[in-house]
């Protein structure tokens, strides 16, 4: 992923890393994506918020893995299905976003961007920044900070 960095021409386009969950294609701004890797050896954390899959070891760092499917409120993938992880960082902490697959990096301008349709599921609406009209399909831009804003006090009742 590092390759896409470096020689960005200052235009009004943005680079997005595309990820897939089911049939839907999502985009994450590339400057928030630190890593793309295959998750392995996830340690589940009992009593954790349901979005959290567990903890994993990413090159000596403990990373909190959360599942995009669960975050979006869609059913989990079948056992044994391929998964990929996107390394995200927020406030000095590293998170791994578990997705079904990772696609290419797209350079998109503002001309294809649309606001989030108002009839979108509220849960999705809160997590999206907009939608890009691409040839033959749509790309939902995810708000990384919104993605990572969950848990905490809401789940504190377990205590």
């Amino acid at each position, binding site marked *: 992923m590092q390759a896409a960095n470096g020689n960005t021409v200052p235009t009004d386009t943005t680079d997005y890393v595309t990820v897939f969950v089911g049939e839907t294609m999502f985009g994450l701004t590339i400057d928030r994506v630190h890593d793309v890797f295959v998750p392995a*050896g996830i*340690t*589940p*954390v*009992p*009593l*954790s*918020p349901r979005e*959290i899959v*567990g*903890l*994993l*070891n990413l090159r*000596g760092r*403990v990373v*909190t893995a*959360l599942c995009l499917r669960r975050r979006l409120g869609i059913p989990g993938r079948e056992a044994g299905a391929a998964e990929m992880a996107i390394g995200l960082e927020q*406030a000095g*902490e590293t*998170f791994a976003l578990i997705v079904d697959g990772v696609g290419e990096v797209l350079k998109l301008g503002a001309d294809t961007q649309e606001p989030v349709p108002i009839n979108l599921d509220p849960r999705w609406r809160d997590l999206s920044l907009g939608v890009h009209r691409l040839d033959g399909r749509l790309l939902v831009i995810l708000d990384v900070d919104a993605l990572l804003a*969950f*848990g*905490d*006090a809401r*789940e*504190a009742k*377990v*205590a």
Partner: protein
Amino acid sequence: MDDLLREFLVESAEHLDTVDAELVRFEQDPNNQQILRNIFRLVHTIKGTCGFLGLPRLEALAHAAETLMGRFRDGYPVSGASVTLILATLDRLKAILGDLEATGSEPAGADDDLIGALEKMASEEVPAAAAPPPLPELPPIVERELKPGEVTLDDLERAFMEAPGPDDFAAMDAPAPAFDAGEPAFDSAPEPAAPVQAPERPAAAPSAEGGESAVAAKVQTIRVNVDTIEHLMTMVSELVLTRNQLLEIARRHEDSGYKVPLQRLSHVTAELQEGVMKTRMQPIGNAWQKLPRVVRDLSAELGKGIDLVMSGAETELDRQVLDVIKDPLTHMVRNSADHGIEATKERLKAGKPARGSIRLSAYHEGGTITIEIADDGKGLDLAAIRKKAVERNFAPAADIERMTDAQVAKFIFHAGFSTAKAVTSVSGRGVGMDVVKTNIETIGGVVDIATELGKGTTFTIKIPLTLAIVSALIVKAGAQRYAVPQIAVLELVRVDPKGDNTSANSIERIYGAPVLRLRERLLPIVTLDGLMRGQATVEEGEIVESGFVVVAQVGRQRFGVLVDEVFHTEEIVVKPMSSKLRHIPLFAGNTILGDGAVVLIVDPNGVAKLVGQSAQSGAATDTESEEVEAGDAKATLLVFKGGAGGFKAVPLSLVTRLEEIDASKIEHLGGRPLIQYRGRLMPLVPADPTIAIRSEGNQALVVFSDGDRAMGLVVDEIVDIVEERLDIEISADRSDLIGSAVLRGRATDIINIAHFLPLAYDDWARGPRKTVVKAPSLLLVDDSAFFRDMLTPVLKAAGYNVTTASSAEEALTLLVNNAAVDLVVSDLDMPGRSGFELVAAMRKSGGRLAEMPVIALTGTVAPDAIEQARRLAISDLVAKFDRSGLLAALAEIGEAAQAADARAAA
């Protein structure tokens, strides 16, 4: 702020702290020229540097203090007043330094008051008697080795003399020129100061040239930013983990040619880790530095003579730990000085030396550091503490009575506790000791108190050396591995299924609740697996037969955690939990093991809290043993076998006879077993649902009678009659049991006979009775299932038949249809109809419900709530989590009802 100034600030603060401590020492030992010389030198250094940096205010103050100290050196007698004055001057210096640090420039203000006083004292005539002989020439070598960045007195003197004085500075336009890198701008001084070497870089590398003659073997040191070391520490931790992973891989590959280099890497890493750890270590003396001054000031303020004796100041510990214990230590020393040490008069009366002493010592012990704070004062007044604890309702009175002295002493760590008769400015505000304890516990430390009335008190604090790396036991529960910090683990006990081997430990169950007998004590057991599924109790069907019990102790609570496997102990690097997971009380952090797997670190404190929640601690159940045997500590109990081979017991005072009957004589009437007994028919009730009444052979019975009614309790076998102190350990969530106790080393259920009598005679409870066997029916109304579950066992243990309702509507329906309810305990804040509305509806409906006693549970007691409660004739308002308050309120109602019954019967 430029670097030079910053270094000056750091250094001066250290110097001032040292001077503080040294001065106190000097006051006690005025003839010790070495101390004086040391003080003098430090103040001189400060003065010199101040002048150098263009800080006239600081310099003038330091100069005045130095002058007075110079007089000491000349033999002027050291008085308390003069030391106080100098200490006050040091405080002023510190204040100015503080401002300087905050703003980057010396604050405006005048110090004429202090300077005047210092000069006045310095110019006073030396009393004739103390006229000193001329002092011998001071030896040129200072008493202690120079720290880095310090220069010898000679250098300083020279530099100082050659540097422009404050007057020169004042005359200059820019009194604080910014010193650029390298040589300071000496040119601006009126005279070129050519040969000066020393103080222009006060905190840099030791000035080798200047000091070479005086100090031969200087330790080379540099100042390093703490963040740098922290980062280094993190990196080393990562390295350790990587090394562990490599070792794990090498273990799996037989042919590896890596073995030798890997071994080497392993050693280097270990050494590196140790080295970095060392850089984080600081002598505990750093935390003590301020204490002599604190004690001196206190002793003046309180009018007591107090000596502070410190030993082991060089004991090193992690700076993170040091930071945490600094304040608690200071507080405890203050506390000892204020409360511990008696006034001089009292001390003399008690035949003790007039001056009290506080002994502070620190030493290493295993992986922990032990700090003792001992005073030779009056000791803790345990009787007063007991009384206070009862007054403040820290625990049920009966509990407190039974506590050991050590347990009682620990009440002083309770929030809101203070036995000092008057609040002094020093302590006695009831804040502090609880904070002390909390602070120490947050870093995995423990505090113990040993006290003897009239002799003194010793606080012993044990804390881990470091927090970054802990020794942990790696265990497995379910499919997961967890790390349990070694510090909380007392021992490991292997448990096997019952029956395989009689000598082995096995877990016994009391209505599903697993317990383990461990040296004559019952240890409540939780399964780690269960905890991880969010349940502190163990479900009936679950297999908890074999594995290991990790016996842990947190505070006064001791419990066992059942795990499937125990692997080994490992030094683990504690990594903090993600912010998303920090709310889970069970985990203290996580770590990466040698095989690269992430495991969670179990927080024993969190587990203890969960165990406490479900086991209802000991408080409620202990009061129950009281009810069984009316306050008598010893109870005579009949022990019998009943149901699933478990032992049960009943107070012998309730038993009328023991019988062994011919099973063939048992008759069944209307499906109920009966026997002809002394010319009457006596109903038989099994002591446990699992007991089958025998049809042949002999059947053992325990006969209870009341007036002309009798009941036979069917048991498997009568075992023994024991007289033992009844210490009920766990309250069982079951109406036929009061709880369990260890009798003759066996876990035994104490049965609640009140449960069985109504089974024999439906109307028994209403019949005339001599013994207290009535079980009033209580309706508990609360919308929270958690709360219902929590209170039900407590109420059952208190002898009530409990029915629950989750809403006001449900409660009303129950009340109207169920004539058996005697009283209502209701939550006030419920969704839908509130508790008040429920009671209002009851009162309106008239008849029985209008008069039924009601206890209301409330989160907050507001005045209008009290008013409303009074209008609705609610018997009592009890705070929602005040269990003992609720039981007391219930007992009150019970007494009133009995009195009414008695009147009705008469």
